[in-house]
């Protein structure tokens, strides 16, 4: 297992300590239970915004704590949802009395743990709105499953709802932005290599030297199909078609195009991918009004990428452009 770590059981804690040491101006790290809040939390008069999930997806979520994005993040063990007490403590810590929005990715564990934490917080008189993100078109939607997984749209929802909260939005308004992003965004990913969970010490899945997994999950969960490796342009087309079909975006619409690296894929390749995304969207008559290219929601050292397309309107564009100052995403201030 080739990783820059000490003992596998200490990875999450030590990485959080590093984050806290590197960005004391932006975040405050609390251990046992683990959570990260914006420096100076709670912000008086502001709706709180909290997210969380398993670790291993950095910079998500703890790297998105700061002005204009999250008030708090709850990192679980690697690829394991956080526990209700983490979420509850974090929620209490960022609550300024105007309520707290929970952004929850659609995994059974996340949903149940956030649900229990919300019950506990509500018991203390904190109003909670939980919005579940489920943007991954790789999973065939069905009444008979737990639904779709939450992936790339989470990053966009955290940024956009964070801007609404920063601008003084009400609990319902902030939750509405999360809902809107979830409704208007679709994603799909692929992997060239597996990730290795530190405590496991070996690859989550085996994959041939000439194979790729299309529709991979952010925990290395299998996707739509295993197939022979293809050139980047064809891979992009395989990801983009289901996204656009499902999104039902029509010619003339404006979108945000988000090309995400899975952790082990270098920037030079992400821009090769972005080139084709831009070309295809143009061919479909869509206008890329904003873009994001980088490794923002990762799966440890997995090589691969995901694409997220978000339909934009004026509200979302102005929320996107609002200042954000976090360890992982920063502009405008």
């Amino acid at each position: 297992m080739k990783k820059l770590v000490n003992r596998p059981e200490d990875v999450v804690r030590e990485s959080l300590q590093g984050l806290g040491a590197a960005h004391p101006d932006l975040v405050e790290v609390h251990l046992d239970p683990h959570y990260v809040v914006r420096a100076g939390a709670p912000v008086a008069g502001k709706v709180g915004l909290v997210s969380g999930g398993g670790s291993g997806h950095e910079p998500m979520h703890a790297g998105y704590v700061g002005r204009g994005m999250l008030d708090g993040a709850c990192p679980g063990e690697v690829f394991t949802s956080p526990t209700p007490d983490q979420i509850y403590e974090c929620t209490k810590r960022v609550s300024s009395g105007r309520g707290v929005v929970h952004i929850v990715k659609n995994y059974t564990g996340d949903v149940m743990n956030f649900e229990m934490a919300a019950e506990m917080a509500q018991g203390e008189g904190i109003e909670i709105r939980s919005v579940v993100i489920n943007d991954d078109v790789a999973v065939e939607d069905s009444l008979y499953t737990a639904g779709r997984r939450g992936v790339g749209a989470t990053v966009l929802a955290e940024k956009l709802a964070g801007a609404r909260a920063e601008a003084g939005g009400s609990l319902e308004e902030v939750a509405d932005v999360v809902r809107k992003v979830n409704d208007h965004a679709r994603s799909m990913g692929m992997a060239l290599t597996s990730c290795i969970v530190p405590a496991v010490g070996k690859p989550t899945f085996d994959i041939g030297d000439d194979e790729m997994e299309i529709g991979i999950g952010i925990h290395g969960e299998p996707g739509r199909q295993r197939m022979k490796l293809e050139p980047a342009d064809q891979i992009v087309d395989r990801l983009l078609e289901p996204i656009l079909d499902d999104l039902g975006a029509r010619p003339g619409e404006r979108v945000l195009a988000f090309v995400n690296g899975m952790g082990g894929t270098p920037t030079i390749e992400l821009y090769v991918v972005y080139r084709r995304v831009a070309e295809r969207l143009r061919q479909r008559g869509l206008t890329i009004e904003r873009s994001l290219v980088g490794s923002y929601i990762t799966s440890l050292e997995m090589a691969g990428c995901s694409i997220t397309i978000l339909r934009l309107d004026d509200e979302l564009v102005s929320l996107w452009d609002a200042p954000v100052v976090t360890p992982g995403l920063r502009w405008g201030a």
Partner: protein
Amino acid sequence: MGGIVLDCERNLRWLERLAGLLAEQAGPLTELDAAIGDADHGINMERGFNAVKERVLAQAAGKDLGTVLKQVGTTLVSTVGGAGGPLYGTFFLRMGQSADGKSELDARELRDALAAGVEGVRQRGRAQPGEKTMLDALVPALEALDAALAAGSDNRAAWEAAARAAEEGSRATVPMLARKGRASYLGERSIGHQDPGATSSALLIRSLAEVVG
């Protein structure tokens, strides 16, 4: 049937045995989870039961059954995470509530405590048997226990039947299509693999069967 089947000492032996089994089987459980999930079920359960040993079992002297089981539940909720944490946490919380204030359980009371735990899992996870989850071990176990007790089996035999039913139930998840939890995202590709949660649930019933009597 009127005798004591679980007392404080046996309860601790059960939980210690379960902790031991989960530590021993952590690798295989995680392997099962790697196939149709995210490769953490064994690690999570082992971490949770290590905390149970430290925080609950080491301090259990003089505490009644209900208290210990509820502490196991809250400890699992706050240390396991994932789907397993709330589900197993709820299982033990409900079992503890059912045994509230008691230091000994007779056959009926233990059966009711188990039933309360299983019902907690069902409510928390909103799943049904046949959906490739923990319930596919727990529900057959409860049914086998009830049938054996109704047929007049002694406690050892009845719990042996329950443990076998849980084990068969966990093996019976292999051909199932997952409809709940992370494995459900795989659709058809979830077929052909044994469910990790059902497998750990069978260990839970097996270790309990070993101590009752």
